[in-house]
């Protein structure tokens, strides 16, 4: 994914935030709903309260059965209807239209039933008066005794008690007792015309009472239905509130849990996603600091770290290049330093040698003169025993002095001039000349001489005598190093590009120089020759001469295979103070 860091950060923050907001909104919606439902419950409770009030008045009305209480009941029903009409359409729709229409219908029914009951009650009271009147007349008739059959006063009184009981209790027991009395009265009717009005009025009353009871039952049923409807609505809303209240803590808990688990997860993922390229860079810097400059930052993301990694890599490229060239320079410097140390060592050795030579020369000169004087004196004197022996001994001293002189005079070759007498020299002919000096040695040792000359070499401006000395020393060493072998002398330019430095190599097939002493061979007094055969100064003087002419000398050798000396000579000699 090619996302910028801030995109990544927004994703990391947005997801937990979204969860939190979702939870909050859900909770808000639920609580709002609960509040609304609470309003519904209140409305339902209010209605129920009013229904109960109506029922209370209904009971009063049923008890007193008069117009006053009927009016109060009607007022209450009107109040209920009025209150119902104040409830808004919206609320009605939300609670449930069918509940309200049922409620309204039931109220209307209730109202009609109460009216019917009231009418019945009014008929009842007329009928009751009639019964009482007929009863009193029958009582009077019975007491008069004008009847022709057995109509006892007691029986009539008994009937009247039953009648009163029924009016008072209106229950089945008293009704049954009354029916029994009425059945007895019925038996008398064929004989007693006076009994008929009382019986008829009683029958009418009973039917009226029964009708009232049925009406009352209907009314009570409607009342109960009203109570039930309001109760149902209230219960239903309460239930909803309860379920919401149960759900809300769960939602809140779920959101908290989600935030606690997913939140850190998302933040961690995003953070590591953002940090990953930086971490890789850090790892690489660690490796680099341990010296591995070949490390490069992997470029995977195209966010802000992309350009960082790119410039980091570019920096590393430069650094590596610089490091490499630095290493090369150091290597070069080290070599130069080694050469310098070597040269310095040789120079100081040379100075030391010159100093020693100077100091030795004076006493040597005294020995030389004293010996010479003795020789002179003895030579002039007459023969005496051991004269010749003495003279021989003196010659021995003189020879030793001479040997010392050779050494000290060669040592003085180290004391160098600063200017170089310049001649134009053809190196090839100079080498021919030098080998010419050594012709005899070469011939006697039956050594083959091979020239490997490059023809068009530039002429050298340098000190001819010194150059001769250089090659004389080297070639003489080569001759000394072998019996019948080959000496090959090669000339050429040091490099193809420049014509500034001429390279001469002198290869022999002699016994070679062991590697461990190759670095010593240019030091004064270092020799592998037998005592008395070499001074150990040849190569050190050669070295000094070559350096003085601005050139260089090096050696490559293998034991039993031979030795090659490489002499570099600048075409134009510059005075070099070593």
């Amino acid at each position: 994914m090619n996302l910028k860091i801030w995109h990544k950060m927004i994703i990391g923050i947005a997801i937990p935030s979204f969860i939190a907001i979702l939870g909050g909104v859900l909770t808000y919606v639920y609580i709002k709903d609960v509040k609304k439902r609470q309003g519904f419950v209140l409305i339902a409770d209010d209605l129920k309260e009013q229904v109960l009030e109506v029922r209370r008045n209904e009971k009063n009305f049923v008890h007193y059965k008069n117009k006053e209480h009927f009016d109060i009941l009607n007022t209450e029903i009107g109040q209920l209807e009025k209150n119902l009409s104040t409830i808004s359409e919206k609320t009605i729709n939300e609670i449930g239209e069918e509940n309200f229409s049922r409620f309204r219908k039931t109220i209307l029914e209730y109202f009609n039933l109460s009216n019917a009951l009231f009418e019945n009650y009014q008929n009842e009271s007329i009928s009751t008066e009639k019964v009482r009147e007929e009863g009193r007349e029958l009582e009077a008739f019975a007491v008069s005794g004008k009847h022709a059959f057995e109509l006892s006063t007691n029986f009539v009184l008994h009937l009247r008690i039953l009648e009163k009981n029924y009016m008072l209790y209106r229950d089945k027991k008293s009704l049954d007792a009354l029916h029994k009395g009425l059945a007895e009265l019925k038996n008398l009717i064929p004989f007693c015309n006076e009994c008929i009005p009382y019986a008829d009025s009683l029958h009418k009353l009973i039917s009226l009472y029964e009708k009232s009871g049925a009406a009352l039952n209907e009314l009570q049923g409607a009342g109960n239905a009203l109570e039930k409807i309001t109760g149902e609505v209230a219960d239903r809303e309460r239930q909803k509130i309860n379920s919401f209240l149960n759900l809300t803590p769960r939602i809140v808990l779920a959101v908290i849990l989600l935030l606690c688990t997913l939140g850190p997860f998302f933040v961690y993922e995003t953070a590591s996603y953002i940090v990953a390229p930086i971490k890789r860079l850090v790892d690489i810097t660690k490796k680099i600091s341990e010296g591995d400059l070949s490390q490069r930052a992997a470029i995977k993301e195209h966010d802000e770290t992309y350009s960082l990694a790119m410039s980091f890599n570019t920096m590393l490229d430069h650094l590596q290049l610089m490091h490499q060239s630095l290493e090369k320079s150091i290597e070069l410097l080290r070599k130069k330093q080694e050469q310098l140390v070597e040269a310095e060592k040789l120079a100081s050795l040379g100075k030391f040698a010159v100093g020693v030579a100077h100091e030795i020369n004076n006493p040597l000169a005294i020995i030389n003169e004293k010996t010479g004087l003795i020789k002179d004196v003895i030579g002039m004197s007459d023969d005496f025993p051991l004269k010749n022996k003495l003279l021989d001994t003196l010659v021995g001293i003189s020879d030793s002095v001479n040997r010392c002189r050779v050494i000290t005079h060669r040592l003085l070759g180290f004391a160098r001039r600063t200017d170089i007498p310049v001649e134009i020299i053809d190196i090839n002919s100079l080498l021919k000349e030098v080998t010419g000096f050594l012709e005899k040695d070469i011939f006697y040792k039956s050594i083959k001489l091979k020239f490997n000359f490059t023809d068009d070499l530039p002429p050298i401006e340098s000190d001819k005598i010194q150059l001769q000395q250089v090659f004389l020393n080297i070639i003489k060493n080569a001759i000394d190093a072998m019996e019948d072998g080959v000496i090959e002398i090669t000339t050429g330019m040091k490099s193809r590009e420049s014509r500034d430095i001429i390279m001469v190599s002198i290869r022999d097939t002699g016994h070679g120089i062991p590697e461990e002493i190759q670095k010593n061979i240019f030091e004064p007094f270092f020799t592998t020759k037998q005592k008395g055969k070499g001074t150990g100064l040849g190569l050190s003087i050669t070295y000094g001469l070559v350096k003085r002419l601005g050139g260089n000398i090096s050696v490559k050798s293998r034991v039993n295979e031979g030795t090659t000396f490489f002499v570099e000579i600048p075409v134009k000699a510059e005075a070099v103070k070593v």
Partner: protein
Amino acid sequence: MKKKKDIKVLLVDDEVEFVDTLAQRLKMRDLLVDVVYNGEQALSFIRKTSPDVIVLDLKMPGLHGIEVLKEIKKSASEIQVIILTGHGTDKDEDEARRLGGFDFLRKPADIDLLVAKIKEAFAEKVERAMTAIAFAEEGALDTARKIIKKEE
């Protein structure tokens, strides 16, 4: 050519043992030898008498041989000077030759070589003197001719 005995040599060297022995040996070889032990003595010596050849050391207490050579060439250029030193470097040799030194030998030197050099130096001195005389004679003749011509 003068006989050997007539060649006057002055040895200048601070190394007493050396210079005295050398003087004896040179005397045995029929040279007239005088010895001084430093540069100042050498210079005061040549103010009194004029040697033919001076054998001069370089490194001495007091005046250095090169200074002595310069002084000699200034005041008595006809005296030939051979440097004989134990401290001679190539540079010294160049310097000495440039200042008119006849030759440059290093100690210890072979006695025969030294004697030969002294003779050569003396011959050189004589030749130069002869040339000078010849020039002088030529000049005198010229003058004489001019005078004669004038009188005529």
